[in-house]
């Protein structure tokens, strides 16, 4: 079914949301991704992906407390839903299976 499959970048964002725990909001996710992947990740892209993940029901979001920073604007914090967790586990399992199938001999020669 379309919508349950995760794209590569979607998966990364989802993982980051999980990794950041309570601090998962757009800019933090963006920074985390940039530092881990080494590529410059654009805020607009992260926003779009978060929005899509929310539409798919993989994450939920709520506005946080107002602070003095950010021009007085509140942050939107993201959290994984059960479906989101399942999707991540699913993706990992699929990868692990494929990894297990690589013959070790072929790998060494490559």
């Amino acid at each position, binding site marked *: 079914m379309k919508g349950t499959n995760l794209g590569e970048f979607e998966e990364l964002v989802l993982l980051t949301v999980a990794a950041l725990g309570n601090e998962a909001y757009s800019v933090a996710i963006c920074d985390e991704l940039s530092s881990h992947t080494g590529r410059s990740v*654009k*805020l*607009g892209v992260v926003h779009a992906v978060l929005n899509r993940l929310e539409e798919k029901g993989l994450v939920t979001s709520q506005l946080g407390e107002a602070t003095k*920073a950010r*021009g007085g604007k*509140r942050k939107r914090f993201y959290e994984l839903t059960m479906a989101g967790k399942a999707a991540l586990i699913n993706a990992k399992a699929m990868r692990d299976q494929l990894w297990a199938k690589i013959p070790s001999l072929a790998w060494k020669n490559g």
Partner: protein
Amino acid sequence: MKQHHPPAWAQRFVEWYCKPGLVEDLTGDLHECFERNLATMGPRRAKLVYIIDAFKFFRSYTVRKTLFAHLFMNRIMIGSYVKTSGRNILRNKLFSFINILGLAISMSVGLLLIAFLLDLRSYDRFHENGGRIHRITSIFTSNSEQGGKFATASIKTADLIREKVAGIEEVTTIKNDFSGDAKVGGNALPIRGYWAEPSLFRVFTFPMLQGNPETALKAPYSIVLTESAATKLFGDQPALGKAIEIDSMTYQVTGVMKDVPFFSHIRFEALVSLSTAGQIHKSGPGFGAWTDIWSHAVYVLPSKNADMTAIRAQLDALATEENLAGKNSRIQLELLPLYNIVVGESLRQSEGGPGFTGPHLSPAVLWILGALALIVILSACFNYTNLSIARAMRRVKEIGLRKAIGAGKNEVRLQFLAEAVMISLAALLLSFVLFLALRPLLINMAPEMQRMVTLDLTPATVLAFIVFSVIVGVVAGFLPALFFSKVSAIHAFGNVSPVKTFRHLTLRRALVVIQYTVTLIFITTTAIGYVQYKNILAFDLGFDTANILNINMLDNKPDAMVQALGEMPEVKGVSRSLITTGVGNAWGGIMKYRDSRDSQLVMTNHVDENYLPLHDYKLVAGGNFVSRPATAGAVSEVIVNQQVVKRFHIAGNDPQKAIGEQITLNGRKMTIVGVMQDFHYGKVENHIGPVAFTPWTPEDRTILSARVHGADMPATVAKIEAAWRQTDRIHPFTAEFYDEEIEQAYSEFSTMIKIIGFLSFLAISIASMGLFGMVVFTTETRLREICIRKVMGAGAGNLMFLLSRGFLSLLSISAFIALPATYLFFQILVLPNFPYHTPVQFTELFSGLLVVLLIAFVMIGSQTLKAARSNPVAVLKRE
């Protein structure tokens, strides 16, 4: 430390389009990034990034759905806007007329410019590989020359590129200036073209009608004719395979190709195989040498997806290697894309075939023209803005009603924009008629213009016209729309005092001042330019040019013509010379005196013994030429000007003693027989430099100068032309009066003055119309006040002063800005380029002002007088 904020408008933009639920965290995120960027890359970049990001967030999921609904609703409303706008236009006939006429006049300039630009843009687009073709530019550096960029390159460059540079699909060389008289059967016709290689047809798209494009230009003495050249020479008979005799050599017609399109930077009637040139010029020195960059254009066609940086690097390496051998000169190679040839960097070409590089215009000229057109158009937009806001009072109630029944700011804004666009579209119709009327005038203004553009209408031009007109409408209606959208319903229906709606007085005054400043700058520039131009034409060059007819003998021997002229009673004298001086032509030689290491480039001319007396050159010392050498090798006498004596300190700077001294000119020893007073060899913008005249020999080409007297000049010229027919039956008679030739030499100035003069005429009409509208409006609104004053005993003069005071002060502010600005512009920027100019006079500075003031007085005066004369009883009774 200064607190920096993200740009407010970008923030508002996000808030406008974004869904309410997303707005807060989105703007918050942007803000956070902004603060971070502020620290890392400074306020300016941070703001830019903020703006870019604000636009990047405009995505389907962030945009309010209602936004689209609004746009849809506006579309329904447009019908209503059109209706009310139409009514409004018809109700205020005078103002609509002023607006439409003003916009139409100014837009016609815009239309001409658009057609002009589109024409320039369409150059060379017909080549299928056009996007890939590049021309080689040679940058030449030597002792006397610092990095001059030439549009030409050497044959060797082409060969080396073919051999060594990877990533090039084709190379083709064109050699300039193939011309001669083509003899077919009994008749002979002049023909002009280039020498070219077979690869020409692979690089460029010139379709061949008959003959094989692969082989047509291979063998020596092959010629490919264009369709019209073939018809010219052979009529209806097939040209292919026929023989043509040109300059006593026989060429075989190996192909007939389609005519070269007008919008091609290379134009020719015929192509001769380059291998012919190889055979003819083989003996000549330097042909095919690395430094022989003067007469060939080399075009390259890189292969698809070629790495241009790699090709450039290879060209650099190639040039560096070749330069090792040369001692005195260095050449670097550059690539110029085909589409940047016509509009692009100005490149030089050595004296050679005329029109070799084709038409050319530097982008700076286009920018200046664009700026001038923009100023005129903006001036007309100002009229619209001014008159609309001035009439605001009468429409405030309408806006109030609209707002009361639910119109928002947007709707009101759109209504006024729609109105302005309607006016500008109406103006487009009128300006299109003007465009058609002005087009031939513009094209015929200068011969270069005729060769450069056609200004034909194409679908693209028409579309551009409409888009342009809509843009003009939006620009004109922008401020009124903003102003009216702010009117609140409560104020509109409250007992609104007119004073309140006049809050924008400062804005309107500023617009009038800007308009008049620009107008005055235009008109004074025209006046000063015209006077300076006339001064240049009347300039004393140091010799007499009156009534001298210069006849270009082309390749004919002048003797028969000299004899024929000598027999005419109207001709008082004839002289022979190599070139005509004082109009920008130049011929030079290297001169040395005693010190063999001290050499100087001097300008030369070869003249016969009649030349100096005929042109009334003044000799300071010595006399005319005595010998009449038959060959260039036998020349032993030279007449120099004072600058030469000064430059070489000949005989202690004493002209008298310089006679008899020996100098070397182009490696040949010569004796100074005379010293001339300094005169202008070049154009007026050049400094006077050293000049040397040597005797004319029969080996030289000839310009005959005939001093003509008599009442009927045209008849005399016709008589001389008849004599020419006896000498040369093929070529047309090319003769011109010296004074006219000088006028042509400065034709770019006269073109410039004509353009600016035309624009200043437009600017003054537009500004005057605007002023007229404002005066009419002011007097109308103040009519009752005037009548009360009149009842109280004010006189007509008194009232006129009262009404015109405001306008006159605005005009004086404009004059105060414009006149010094123009004066400084000329004194600091323009005139220093002309070492022998006359200073700007106050008469031409103030004549423009006088004209503008006079027109303004007439308009203000007539209206105020009308108001002052009105009958108070009739006006005041109305209430």
